[in-house]
Every structure is written in structure tokens, then in C-alpha cells.
């Protein structure tokens, strides 16, 4: 079935603030889904969007798919239930940084640990928007907000580190403003079996405007970000003249053509490497010393939770003597009263 982006737009009026980063994310997803369907042979009734609470969590209302708008922090748990109950469904979870990493942190890491086959879009604007401007678990240290008038005194999470710490099999990062890259990652996420987390660096035009501007700005983006693609050398820069190399156990930025460095010396990205060492270093690269890593950073294959559940049920059933409830009730020790 051939879909267009229009097929994924619901009739509900979209109510985010003008200029919100959620708009391009929604558009990128709606554009990517026809391709996902085409590539994977899906029809649209198999999609379920699940969210928690927050600005981003209104997302399911705007997709013409099945949708469930949950409660704060619990999207991963609800999505898990949907997927385990009916593994033929394709489940997408939408959470903000507060929803996924503060109140829902526990569900987030356990979904990843189990490798449930769901796709998590983590909209990271480093602020609480819907409650009007309090700091979040990803707000930068020292960030001044309504609840941190003198600056925060707590270190932020780097979501990718959490994903790897929970033995995640897929992690990607994109920018709200880069709809092409977001779309490309959506397709990769859909293809991945297991929990696929995509962190989307998102702007909050009202309460945290410009929080990612130092890397997303048009003039600086190509110098301060690197788009990683499996099998391709890690090259970036407006002139494509910079790359990443290993220096001992550390990454370093080098300039191709200087000090004898050629393109052959540049690291080639291997998203399928099971050892998370390099992936962790890539995830942790920060401006201005390093480009921020975008693209699919990690995509390793492993059995999913829902596959394991299904296999276990089938294996037990193949050898079962109890086939129905009547059998069950008569199993074990019973006795007859004849009179």
C-alpha cells in the first residue's frame, strides 16, 4: 500500500506553541512513515503511538494511527504492555526529557534492558515546558529556571549514556530542525528489532529558546556536529576536512591533509559493534572541542523480549499436557466422591 504523509495526519488541530520544535519532528515522522510502510510492507493500522505527559506527549493525537496518551512517566510501561500483548503491532513511544528521564526513568531503563521491540522518540529540550519552565534532568549544570533561580546544582543526564548503561541495542540522535536526518533515522529505528531510542535535540521557543543553538545554528551546524553512518568514515566540517581518530584510548579531532593525516586514517563508523566503548565516546562528544554526534550511533542485533516471550510460550505449549481450563482444574491431586 502506497501512503502519503497526509495519510498519517489526524483531524485534531495541532496545538503546540508557534515555532515549537515539535512541529518539524511531527512533520518528519509523517513524511517518514510512508517510506517505513513501503520498506517493511506495513499497513498503517499496525502502528500504535503511546505517550506520557508533557508537550511532546500530545503527539499521538496528531497521528492518524492508533494512539494512547498515558500518564506522566509511564509511556514506556504502557508501550511495553501493548507490544507484549500483541507483538504484531508496531509501537512508537513519544516522551520528553522529563517524562522519560525523571518521573519515568525507571520504566525507560527497564524497557531498554528488556529490549522490548518499541521505538522511543525522546524529545530533549532540556526544560519542563508544559509546567512552564522548570529545569529537567537534562538541563545544563547551572541553568537558571523558575525552580533554580540561582542556577541548578545537579548534573544532567546524557540520555545516550543511560541507554548504553541499560545495555541498549539502538541509539540515534538528531536535531528537530534536520527533518531529513530525522526521517532517515525513523526508518532505521523501524527496521531495528528491539528498543530503539532516538534522542531529538529540540528547541523550546518559550522557555528554553536556543538551548541547542550552538550546534543547530545554520552557520555552525556542519562544524559542530557529525552525522555518523554505518560503514562510512567519521568526517565532518563545512569543507568535509575534519575527522575523528583514536589517540590512545581517546577520540581526537584531526584535520585531513594536515600532519600527514589522510582519509584512510579516519575512523570508520561501526554501529553494529557490540562493545559499547567507542559508542560511549561518540555519545559523550561535546562542543566546542568535539562535534556532537548525530545519526545512528548504535544498532546491534539481539533477541527481543517479545520474541523470547513468544518462543517460551510456544515451547511450553508444544510439550503441554494441559490444553484447556478443564484439564487445569483436574491437574494434580484430586479425589472422587461417588455417593
Amino acid at each position, binding site marked *: 500500500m502506497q501512503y502519503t504523509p497526509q495519510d498519517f495526519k489526524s483531524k485534531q488541530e495541532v496545538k503546540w506553541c508557534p515555532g515549537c520544535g515539535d512541529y518539524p519532528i511531527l512533520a518528519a515522522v509523517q513524511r517518514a512513515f510512508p517510506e517505513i510502510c513501503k520498506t517493511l510492507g506495513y499497513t498503517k493500522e499496525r502502528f500504535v503511538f503511546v505517550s506520557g505527559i508533557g508537550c511532546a506527549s500530545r503527539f499521538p493525537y496528531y497521528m492518524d494511527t492508533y494512539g494512547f*496518551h498515558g500518564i506522566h512517566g*509511564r509511556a514506556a510501561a504502557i508501550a511495553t504492555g501493548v507490544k507484549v500483548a*500483541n507483538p504484531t503491532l508496531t509501537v512508537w513511544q513519544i516522551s520528553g526529557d522529563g517524562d522519560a528521564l525523571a518521573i519515568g526513568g525507571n*520504566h525507560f531503563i527497564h524497557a531498554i534492558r528488556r529490549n522490548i521491540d518499541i521505538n522511543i522518540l525522546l524529545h530533549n529540550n532540556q526544560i519542563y515546558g508544559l509546567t512552564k519552565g522548570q529545569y529537567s534532568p537534562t538541563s545544563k549544570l547551572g541553568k537558571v529556571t523558575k525552580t533554580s533561580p540561582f542556577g541548578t546544582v545537579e548534573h544532567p543526564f546524557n540520555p545516550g549514556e543511560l541507554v548504553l548503561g541499560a545495555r541498549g541495542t539502538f541509539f540515534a540522535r538528531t536535531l528537530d530542525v534536520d527533518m531529513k536526518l530525522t526521517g532517515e533515522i525513523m526508518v532505521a529505528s523501524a527496521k531495528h528489532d528491539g528498543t530503539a531510542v532516538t534522542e531529538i535535540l529540540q528547541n523550546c521557543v518559550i522557555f528554553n529558546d536556543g538551548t541547542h543553538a550552538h550546534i543547530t545554528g545554520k552557520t555552525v551546524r556542519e562544524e559542530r556536529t557529525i552525522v555518523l553512518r554505518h560503514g562510512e568514515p567519521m568526517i565532518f566540517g563545512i569543507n568535509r576536512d575534519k575527522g575523528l581518530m583514536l589517540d590512545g584510548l581517546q577520540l581526537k579531532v584531526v584535520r585531513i591533509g594536515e600532519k600527514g593525516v589522510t582519509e584512510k586514517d579516519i575512523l570508520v563508523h561501526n554501529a553494529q559493534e557490540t562493545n559499547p566503548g567507542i559508542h560511549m565516546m561518540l555519545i559523550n562528544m561535546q562542543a566546542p572541542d568535539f562535534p556532537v554526534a548525530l545519526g545512528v550511533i548504535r544498532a546491534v542485533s539481539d533477541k527481543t523480549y517479545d520474541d523470547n*516471550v513468544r518462543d517460551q510460550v510456544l515451547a511450553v505449549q508444544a510439550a503441554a499436557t494441559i*490444553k484447556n481450563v478443564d484439564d487445569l*482444574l483436574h491437574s494434580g491431586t484430586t*479425589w472422587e466422591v461417588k455417593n
Partner: protein
Amino acid sequence: MPHKIVDIKNVVIRFSGDSGDGMQLTGALFTDAAALWGNEFSTFPDFPAEIRAPQDTIAGVSGFQIHIGSVDVHTPGDLCDVLVAMNPAALRANAGRTKSTATIIIDADAFEEKRSTRAGFTTGDPIRELKLEDRTVIYAPITSLTKESLKDSGLDAKAVVRSKNMFALGICFYLFNRPLQATFNYFEKKFAKRPELIAANNKVLQDGFNYAGNIQAIHNTYNVKPAKYPKGTYRNINGNQATAWGFIAASEKSGRPLFCGSYPITPATSILEELAVRKDLGVKTLQCEDEIAGICTAIGAAFAGNLAITTTSGPGLSLKSEALGLAVITELPLVVVDVQRSGPSTGIPTKTEQTDLLQALYGRNGECPMVIMASHSPSHCFDAAFWAAKLALEHMMPVMLLSEGFIGNGSEPWRIPQMKDYPAIVPPLVDAVNDGEYFPFLRDEKRLARRWALPGTPGLMHRIGGLEKDNAGQVSSDPLVHEKMVRERAAKVERVADFIPPLKVFGEQEGDLLLVGWGGTFGHLYGAVKQLQSEHRRVGLAHFDYIHPLPKNTADVFKKFKTILVCELNNGQFADYLRSRHQEFYYRQYNKVQGQPFMVSEITGAVNAIL
């Protein structure tokens, strides 16, 4: 002198010892033997929270009480006829639970000075200290006789001493003229891979039995005849197992796969454990990261079309409150089981209580009514779970099923029903677009239930969630839409009264006093009514399996009695609820909050004090 065999109708036996003495297994094996013998029985496992509590302390005493009889077994019994006390602490903890005519069997080896002192004895004569001189006390050196019995078994010293509970069980089997074969069979199955343990346990059991026959201390043994049961196939069942099986039955009858999202919590855990075994019947269980994920995975599974349940106890129910509201507003079928325990907070976690009723009724934000049901005995848990699931699925709403530690862990014989005698469960599924677009919150007139469109169905794409919506499913903060939806959801719950059986009265149908109860106190209240009737008291019992909504004939029943006495294991929560629902009556209360079930004598005493 050959001993005399005396016929008796009922007997209560209590096995007690340290929490590591194997008293729960001993009780369970005595139960199995009673079941195969054909007795009526009711059991009450009464154990501490600690897996291996400090040795020889009162707090560490683990007990298992069983009431067997040929007739009229409604409870595990008030006081016991036989007490097995494996150590001094067990004797002290249970002395008050023995009848004045009781036989007390003690492990004499355990009553050395140091251990007696730990249990608070000071004189070297615990029996006199506890004023138990009129009881028949059998001082059996159980530990040393067990060691002697197994000296050639090849088992290590620890394993040998651990077998002493089987010696005590052998003594009890002799006392009640029970065949040992059922227990031999158990050992054979349990230790199939360790034949040395089969032989050892068989020997200790037989030696205990023989020992009791050889000593002169036992003058009479007792014969409790099989009960006159209706014809059928029977089994022993405990409440949590029955609850789990009731849901599996509902899954089979509805064709909806069963999903249980849960987090381990005493005393509810064994429902999850039982369901986890049942992959043969396609049951999916997810042991979650916390209680909230337990209910939220279940809500997700319900949205995806499963019969979804979550199981917990009071503290876990507190954690699930917000998600319960989500299930109410999304109008999804879900059953929440609360196997109540003593609170508040962690309370006395292994002890029984009925203190979560008001939490179940009212413990949520917003106008958030739910159907509340209660199981009233171990075997009734099966039907209660089945009907809770049927209501949830057919009326499209969450249902709370209250159980209690007492019935969850307790067991009784159960005539095995046939599934063909149970009704079909027909959820209002939509499988195609009938009248144009699908509107998630349009209702049928009979039940006010919305229709259920499952993800994966072409053409029925829709979005639901925690935000208020109109009947068409559009998000709405319109004041009048909100009020309309609040009232519709409440009316849907009230409408359930049309689909539940009328309140039944046990005992006198009208008269001087009506006992009112709910949940696991049924056996004690019923036993009390029987006894009071035999004393010519005009007393009846109305026991509520359906709490919200109440059966429609509730007021008609109440009207027929001069006095209403509401008996509960809390401070009067159901009485308060009845006061709000049926203000025209005056409710007296009898309450107990000790983490222990009622005794029949307490109820009869309370009634006699009024009449």
C-alpha cells in the same frame, strides 16, 4: 493396653515451630491427607514476615492451623484440640490458642534451659508457667528420635534434623488414624531424583507413627469420618491459586488472551507465580520494575485487546492509584486484585486485614468510581475472579477485586466445576466500520459500555488517553462535556447492579439481628450464625461479594431485621460506606484489627451481648 478409637466430628490442629522448622509443609501434607480421606477442611497458614526469623523467638514462630471435620467446617477453627510445638517459643505463642481439653505435643529436646529462657520461661516448667496443667502434654524427644531414626541414612546432620517435622507429622497421623500412603506418594514425586531422601522421609514418618503407637501416653486416638459431600471430583485449592485460575477461565470463555503485569508483594505474589507457570495455556506474565509498571503494562495490554490484570496488596494499590484513574477515564477492561494485608504502610505484612476498602472505593483523584468486588473464601476466589473479568470485559471498565491474606493463603476442598457450566464472556468488540466512523466513547443503552476497537483493525484508528474527551473521542475541556462524561462513567458503574445476583441471606431470613460482612470473614460469620441458630437466636447473615455497586435488594434485606451488626477486620470501613449509601438504617459495628481473622466465639459473643 490397646488404645480406644473415639469418633469425633471436628478437630482443630495447629502445627507450630521456628520459621525454619517446616511447619507450613507439615500442615500442607496433613491437609492433603485430610483431603484424600474425604474430610471437610479449612486451613490457616500464619507465618512471620522473616524467612528465617531469629531462632527460638516469639516473633519467629510459624504456625499452620487446620480444621478437619465430617460436617460444619466453615473456618480454620478458633482454638485447637491438638497443638504441636516444636520449641518453647511456639508453646508460649500458641498456649492461648489451645482448648482446655487440648493435647499438646512438644519436642522435649527443644526445651533445654537456654532455649526456654529465650522464650521467656524462668522455671524449667513451661507447662506450669503457662497454666496448661490440665492439658494432655506429650513430651516426645522428637529431635533425638529423628536422629536415631536416620543414623544410617547417610544424610548429613543438618538434613537429619530438618526431617523432624515429618516425625511430628507421623505422630499426628497416628493420633487421627490416617494412612501414610498419600504422604509416601508425595515424597516419591518430590524427591524423584534423590531416592535417599524418599527413603529417609518415609522412615521418619513411619517411625513417628510407630512411636506414637508404642508410648503409653496416648490413650485415645480419633476418627474423623469423611464428610458427606455432593457427588463429584474434588481438589484442594488455596485462594491465590483459585484467583489465578478464575482469570484463566475468563480468558478461555472470552477468547481474549490473558496478560498479567505485576510486581511481587506479600501476600499476592503467588497469583503471579501461578500465572507464570501457565504458559501452556498461553498466559503472558510480566514481572515489572515496580507496581506502577504493573498496572501500566496491563493498561497497555488492555488497549491492545487482552484480558489484562494486575495483582497487588495494599501498599502496591496506593502506588497504582493514578493509573487506576487512567483505566477509568479510558474505559478499558482491567481487573486489579488487592490481596489485603495489615497496614498502614508495611504494617504486619504477612497478616490478614480488611483495611483497604476505603482506599479501593475512594483512593483516586477526580470523580473516579470503580466496581468493587470481594472474594469470600479460598475456592470462591475462582468465581470472583471469573465474574470480575466478565464485568470488566463486557462493561468496558476497570474492576477491583479485594481478597485477603487469610483466604489467599488458606485452602479448602473444592468440587471442581466444569467450564461448560460457566457463561460466555462477550466483550463489545468492533471488527469493522459499521456506521461510518468509529467513536470511542459512544455507549450501548443496556450497559452504557463503549465499544472496543483493537489496534491492528483497519479503519478504526483512534486515540484515547487521560485527557477528558467527548463521546466522539475528541479531547475536550468544555465544562458541560466534562460533567456529562463524569456522570456517564458513574452511571455505568451503578448500572452493574442490574447484572449482579441479589444479596442472599444465610440463617434466619428475618429476625432480631443481621450480621453483615464482606470478604474473607464469611466462614466465621456463617459459623457464628449456625451456632446462634442452634441456640434459637433469630440471626441471619448478609455477606457482600459485590460492594460497589451494592446489590439492589440491600435495603429490602436490612429492613427485615431489628438490629444490623457490621463485622469487619478494620475500624468500620464498610459500616461507614453503608451509612453513606443507606442512611435509613442504624449500623452497629464489631471490629477487630489485630492482623488475625475473627474467631467464631468473638462473633457469637458480640451478638449475645446485644440480644
